[in-house]
């Protein structure tokens, strides 16, 4: 009888061979493309695999298609894992605390977590990595680098910068005979004039959720003449200036804002604006696409962008590095990781992520290049340029940032609901002071 060898015998053999091959230690260079396009000397890290952990963010979207270029040029394989912001933070903290992480490079939120991560020794100081003159570290904006520098350690390279701006509906302001608000008083007056609750038209929308609101409240606080704490580390949440800022922000949201504003972070607030239910909206410059892209917004062609309105202390908005690229101090591939960070933040790549991907970066030469600003609307570029001297922080610069945000945001929440916000601010001030003292 003729016995035919079943096909799965062949498959099994092939799999066994593959498994054995996988077990055999192979020199990394042997795995590099054997095409001979480049000599081994040009690709010292060929065969290395980098684990890059980041957020679901426009920068990730912009850089992902470019990774192939980097892999071809260096032979380094990059695995990009993307998570939601909160999940990212928890993932990083859990892996780093456990001490067994194989993360090499990760996206950091410098103002949110750089202090705590630096204190726990999780950052590799990148100063040496970027000292290469070809890289031109000086080209990165001072303010942006200042944000990622913690206790003298360069914890990350800025990749995304943002400022608070005012989004407004041109058509509604025009119809009401109003000009674009340049002061907070005008902002409030315009919000009042444009509110028509019966027709679900709200004069003003912004974040009202406890923790997320703090960053967007900051520019109101600064422009009213307040701050989180003074030079002696005394909390200043209940000063007359701060109380006026809380009152203004809360009154506008309560009287001229949509219902349910207490549960709104930026995705909910931007949805209200993009559906055409709000006339004025203050938030980060980086989310402009949600408002100005016709695919995402029904009011894209009617929306303008302006610099943050001035209060008694002037127009003082935040101007911060919202995301940086950092290296884990426990990385086994530090040299390759450095290569990647230098590549991803080089002029050439930033020109692509910013100029084509529309992710506002920190390189001055790219901003000076018309191609670097081409992806953005003209009034947006103007508003961002006018915010260049804004404050380098949008939340208190403390280690326990999340806790501080909850304390402050909780008081603003009381005000939005129409409660006794002076008492709430006094209590928040005492709690915040205790937090500041514990970090001395």
């Amino acid at each position, binding site marked *: 009888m003729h016995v035919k060898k079943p096909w799965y015998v062949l498959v099994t053999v092939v799999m066994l061979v593959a498994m054995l091959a996988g077990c055999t230690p192979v020199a990394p260079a042997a795995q590099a493309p054997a095409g001979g396009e480049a000599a081994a000397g040009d690709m010292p890290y060929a065969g290395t695999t980098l684990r890059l952990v980041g957020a679901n963010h426009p920068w990730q979207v912009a850089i992902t298609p470019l990774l192939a270029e980097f892999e071809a040029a260096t032979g380094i394989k990059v695995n990009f894992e993307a998570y939601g912001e909160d999940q990212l933070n928890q993932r990083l*903290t859990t892996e780093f605390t456990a001490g067994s992480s194989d993360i090499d490079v990760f996206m950091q939120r410098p103002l949110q977590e750089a202090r705590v991560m630096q204190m726990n020794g999780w950052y590799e100081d990148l100063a040496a990595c970027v000292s290469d003159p070809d890289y031109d570290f000086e080209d990165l904006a001072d303010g942006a680098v200042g944000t990622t520098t913690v206790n003298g350690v360069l914890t990350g390279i800025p990749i995304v910068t943002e400022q608070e701006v005012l989004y407004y509906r041109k058509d509604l302001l025009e119809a009401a005979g109003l000009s674009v608000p340049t002061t907070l008083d005008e902002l409030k007056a315009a919000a009042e004039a444009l509110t028509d609750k019966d027709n679900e038209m709200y004069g003003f929308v912004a974040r009202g959720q406890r923790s997320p609101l703090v960053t967007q409240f900051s520019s109101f606080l600064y422009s009213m003449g307040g701050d989180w704490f003074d030079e002696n580390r005394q909390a200043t949440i209940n000063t007359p200036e701060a109380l006026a800022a809380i009152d203004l922000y809360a009154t506008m949201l309560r009287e001229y804002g949509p219902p349910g504003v*207490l*549960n709104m972070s930026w995705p909910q607030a931007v949805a209200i604006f993009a559906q055409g239910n709000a006339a004025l909206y203050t938030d980060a410059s980086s989310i402009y696409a949600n408002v100005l892209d016709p695919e995402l917004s029904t009011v894209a062609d009617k929306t303008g962008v302006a610099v943050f309105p001035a209060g008694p202390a002037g127009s003082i908005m935040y101007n911060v590095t919202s995301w940086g690229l950092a290296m884990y101090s426990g990385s086994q591939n530090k040299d390759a990781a450095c290569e990647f960070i230098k590549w991803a933040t080089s002029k050439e790549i930033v020109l692509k992520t910013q100029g084509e991907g529309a992710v506002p970066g920190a390189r001055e030469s790219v901003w000076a290049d018309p191609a670097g600003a081409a992806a953005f609307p003209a009034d947006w570029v103007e508003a961002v340029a006018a915010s260049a001297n804004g404050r380098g922080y949008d939340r208190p610069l403390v*280690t326990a940032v*999340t806790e501080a945000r909850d304390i402050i945001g*909780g008081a603003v929440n*009381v005000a939005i609901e129409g409660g006794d916000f002076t008492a709430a601010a006094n209590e928040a001030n005492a709690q915040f002071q205790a937090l500041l003292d514990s970090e001395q």
Partner: protein
Amino acid sequence: MITRFIDRHQRWLFPAPAVIFVVLMMVFPLGYTLWNSFSGWSLTAGRPNTFIGPQNYIALMTDGRFWNAVWNTLYFTALAMSVELVLGVAIALLLDAKDYRGKRVVTSILLLPMMATPVAVAMVWLLMFEPTAGVINFVLGEVGLPKPLWIAGSNSVIPSLVLVDVWEWTPLITLIVLAGLAGLPSEPFEAARVDGASYWQILGRVTLPMLLPTISVAGLLRFIDCIKTFDIIYGMTGGGPGFSSETLNIYTYNQAFYYFNFGYASALLVIFFTIVTGISLLVTYSRRRLEV
């Protein structure tokens, strides 16, 4: 040789895997949490995992957010449990009252909410509760009724969350009570009917007292689940607006995974564990007395 060893030590060897599992997965984490609750471990304060005595517990006693969380937890649990028990038992009695066509279909449909993943349930209700665009307020507006803020108002948030919990978990009570009803002997009912008792008399004097052990088991199960409800609250409000739906579980989560105060969070967990164990023991104990 080995066979003899096994034979002689059977009673140790056979349960060994289970014992090891319980020690590794339950005793060790509990003990470690207890140890942590006496440590100052905090990533944000830069404190290592060293013993600091009962300081965390002392700090908890003066922590306004802790007491707020205790209140919210009890409020949510009491409201959810009472509504679910009353509704669940009532639905079970209704379903059990009479045989009719399609009874099994009705029962199956009733059980559907329980099958859904709580996070998905949270997302769906989140959309329905949305004050401006949500379907609930749309319908209320069409009928001419006022539109509440639901989970966006600090007074209405817990009742709204209870509504979701009731929707999802009342069927569990119904299911357990139905099983209990099926197991009841028929003689007492016949005797009561012969004696001329009305439906309500039978319900109050015969059915419910005989069902009490079943209801208390169902209640205990729901109590433990309610008090540690996390997914729907986290998914829908995250403890907000402000702190008005921050339960003990959410507060512990914030302390551990947002503030990185592991010691403090462990102390919260120990207190939480004590409350749950205490009440469970109380219920078990009183049940035993009821049965005697």
